[in-house]
């Protein structure tokens, strides 16, 4: 117990880092996913291809390999200089982006064609139709799957400790090596991750009820 209380300030620092990386990466990841989904659905073959190659490449490789590729691989070029945190953020964002792309694409495709036809017949442009009609409905429908991916991405951030990002997991490892109390410390870490994830699903549930499709 004492160990935990003593290590709380350090764990708190780690928690802040984890939440910071998660928040930035998930927003970037979502934007990447949105752009890739729209490329995937665009009438231009070349754009479909670019998006498909991106999505397949990310989904077909392990997260750790992506992380090493970005942190060690890209950083081996003299004109790239990504610090640990940004390498981590970029990896989580790109990884989540690929999965978001598929979620968003499926969400867009699940909206009845009649909605687009009605919007276009009123004289709205394709982008107005997307913004005001298709995407708002698609997002409501996608919320559970989006939350699911966000939770996976949050858990993925713990892998960033491997390259030394001072996140919650990394702080825990440091404390364990100083106190030799792995059971207590890792249990505390587990509880902390669990609470964040629980709060995330509460938020998602709230949003789902708030924006329920009538």
């Amino acid at each position, binding site marked *: 117990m004492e160990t935990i209380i003593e290590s709380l300030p350090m764990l708190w620092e780690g928690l802040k880092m984890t939440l910071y990386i998660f928040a930035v990466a998930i927003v970037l990841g979502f934007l990447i996913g949105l752009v890739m989904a729209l490329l995937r659905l665009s009438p231009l073959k070349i754009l479909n291809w670019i998006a498909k190659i991106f999505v397949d490449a990310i989904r077909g490789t392990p997260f750790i390999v992506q992380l090493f590729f970005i942190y060690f691989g890209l950083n081996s070029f003299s004109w790239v200089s990504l610090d640990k945190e940004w390498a981590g953020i970029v990896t989580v964002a790109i990884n989540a982006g690929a999965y978001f792309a598929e979620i968003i694409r499926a969400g867009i495709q699940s909206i*009845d064609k009649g909605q687009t*036809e009605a919007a276009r*017949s009123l*004289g*709205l442009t394709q982008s107005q139709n997307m913004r005001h009609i298709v995407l708002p409905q698609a997002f*409501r429908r996608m919320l559970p799957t989006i939350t699911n991916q966000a939770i996976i991405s949050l858990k993925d951030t713990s892998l960033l400790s491997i390259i030394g990002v001072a996140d919650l997991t990394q702080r825990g490892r440091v404390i364990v090596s100083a106190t030799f109390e792995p059971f207590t410390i890792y249990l505390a870490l587990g509880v902390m991750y669990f609470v964040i994830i629980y709060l995330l699903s509460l938020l998602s549930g709230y949003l789902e009820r708030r924006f329920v499709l009538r």
Partner: protein
Amino acid sequence: MSMIQVNNLKKSFGDLEVIKDMSTAVEPSEVVCVIGPSGSGKSTFLRCLNRLEEISGGHVYIDGVDITDPKNNINQIRQNVGMVFQHFNLFPHMTVLDNLTLAPVKTGKLKPEAAEKKALVLLDKVGLAAKAKAYPGELSGGQKQRVAIARALAMDPKVMLFDEPTSALDPEVVGDVLGVMKDLAKEGMTMIVVTHEMGFAAEVADRVLFIDGGYIVEENVPKELFGNPQHERTKAFLSKVL
């Protein structure tokens, strides 16, 4: 000048030639009903008139503007052509009022306050002023279709296209929707109505087109077309539906 001019219209889906050659013209304030067997291309014909389907050949002019000419802005043209669908296609995530104001506001036709005022007038006209704040999911089919008509009218179209507007409705509410359409016809709206309601066609239409096999087989005033059809196919079709 005709409000709608269709010259040698052709439309294929891949190898399937749905519209082989159709020409007709609709005058301002004219009400034209389109009848024909299921799958004969009635919906396709209608959807070619606002380019929801890309035309394979021929020309369509709306109020003198060639809608297939890439120089003409299709979004601009569509603002003049209201469409009402069999399955309403209301926007379920918006209130009835927002369904009506979205397009006028987003296309820059009206300021939000003006659009709202107009929407309330239109809802009153279709008998649904009390439903302005409701969501489409809270309405009955007949109410939905009347909202859909009001939504199309909110853009002040020159022409209204109806694709089987009552086919998805319970029989007891069909009359409400047809009533709104009759009022519209009386006010001088130019209308093309694909329908199975022969009574409506007989009463309201200035002209009826019978479509089959990719052609307009026969067109005439309702009294003649229903009472004295000239073609075998028209006779066969009418004997089944009348």
